[in-house]
């Protein structure tokens, strides 16, 4: 058991160390010279039109919330997939109900045109 967690922790530490070293080395080795024009944000040579942080479309929000809902559905499927052979028809029918209800949700979203990107 312990071996498993050790492998995870060691890999995490090494990977984090690697990315940290890369950024650190780049900072140490790279030259540095600042000037106001270099600091402008890149807009294909046009004068910068100010900060980019502004509001954007609600469609992305829709995508994110629909993703959460279906992601949770998928998450329930993993433990089920491991033992569904043992549960047999009983397990199959309970998952069928679950998927059917969420399938209705998908159908609703589809019909309402929320999946349309226009």
């Amino acid at each position, binding site marked *: 058991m*312990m*071996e*498993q967690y*050790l*492998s*995870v922790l*060691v*890999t*995490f530490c*090494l*990977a*984090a160390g*690697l*990315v*940290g070293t*890369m*950024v650190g*080395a*780049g900072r140490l*080795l*790279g*030259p*540095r*010279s600042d000037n*106001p024009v*270099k*600091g*402008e*944000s*890149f807009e*294909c040579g046009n004068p910068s039109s100010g*900060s*980019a*942080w502004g509001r*954007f479309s609600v469609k*992305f929000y829709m*995508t*994110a919330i*629909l*993703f959460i809902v*279906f*992601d949770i559905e*998928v998450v329930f*499927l*993993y433990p089920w*997939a*491991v033992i*569904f*052979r043992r549960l*047999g028809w009983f397990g*199959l029918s309970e998952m*069928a109900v679950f*998927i059917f209800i969420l*399938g209705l949700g*998908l159908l609703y979203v*589809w019909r309402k045109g929320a*999946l*349309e*990107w*226009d």
Partner: protein
Amino acid sequence: MGLEILIAAVKALTVILMVLSLAGVLGWVERKGSALIQDRIGANRASIFGFAGAGLVNTMMADPLKFLTKEDVIPTGVDKLLHTLAPCVNLFPVIVAFAAVPFGDTVEIAGRTIQLQAVQLNVGVLFVLAMASLGVYGVVLGGWASNNRFSLLGGIRGSAQMISYELGMGLSVVVVVMTFGTLDLQEIVRAQGHMIGGILPGWGVFYQPVAFVLFFIAGIAETKRVPFDLPEGESELVSGYFTEYSGIKYLMFFMTDFAEIAVISALVSTFFFGGWQVPFLGDDGFHFGSTSMALPKLIVVLLQLASFMVKVLFFCWFQIMVRWTMPRLRYDQLMRFGWKGMLPVSLLNLVVTAVVIVAFQEWRV
């Protein structure tokens, strides 16, 4: 305890070096490969004494050094901390995800059984998916922190695309888990060791061809490459979410791209092409029906390692070919394909698989 840490560290380092050098090789293969496909000569300056193949070594050594010694420009309006954090957050999960893929069976060294897999978890499949789901942050942070319109658009597009295709990917993985009945990547590979009818290797692709196609498409979408490269589509968004990056941080975004290709290839081989399994090769040598050919354990392990690498490289090359053959999708087409194509088809595939398996309980892998 100390020895265990050492073993784990050696394995993790091996895998990290593996994925980093794969990323380097792919950077070169992409340049030369695209030239091959488009009937050009391609990168021919980075050769040593006129031998173009040496350009590979040159590229792998020279590129990182060059990027390291270039200025890391941080524009004035950005969120400095997040600007620096984004490439790290982008690269970290990819490396860690690759570490969970088994690259060989067990070996015995000095009486110890060592699994050829850096991150050994009973829930390896979920570990990989969890890391894939963290990949969104590098994109969204890089886009937001840069305070640049192109970056922000690229970051937002990229994250929406990644989460949309994560569903198709997750559902096709569920089907794989159902087929093999385990969440352990090493067990999934082991389950593919038999032969169907004595001639066909028992690879996942022969049991789940639909899931393979779905997973591969979703995987390419997750790597944000053509035909799904809207987050960084050069002709409209400059470089998308890493427009404002330079120096080593730019290289890190680039490495992430290539490492993602390697991860997807490794996962496709693991789930659907038997990972390190070699057809007809058992623990002690080849078995063709009644005839068999004994091999020493070391040769078997090396063959399996080679088999894994060959499969990974093949799928990397396949993705590069896709990249240079396909046109880019429009964003509405991309989202429609994700939500109205991938999602229903993968759900249907899942239901059919479940019914078939339960109806024929004996149909086991």
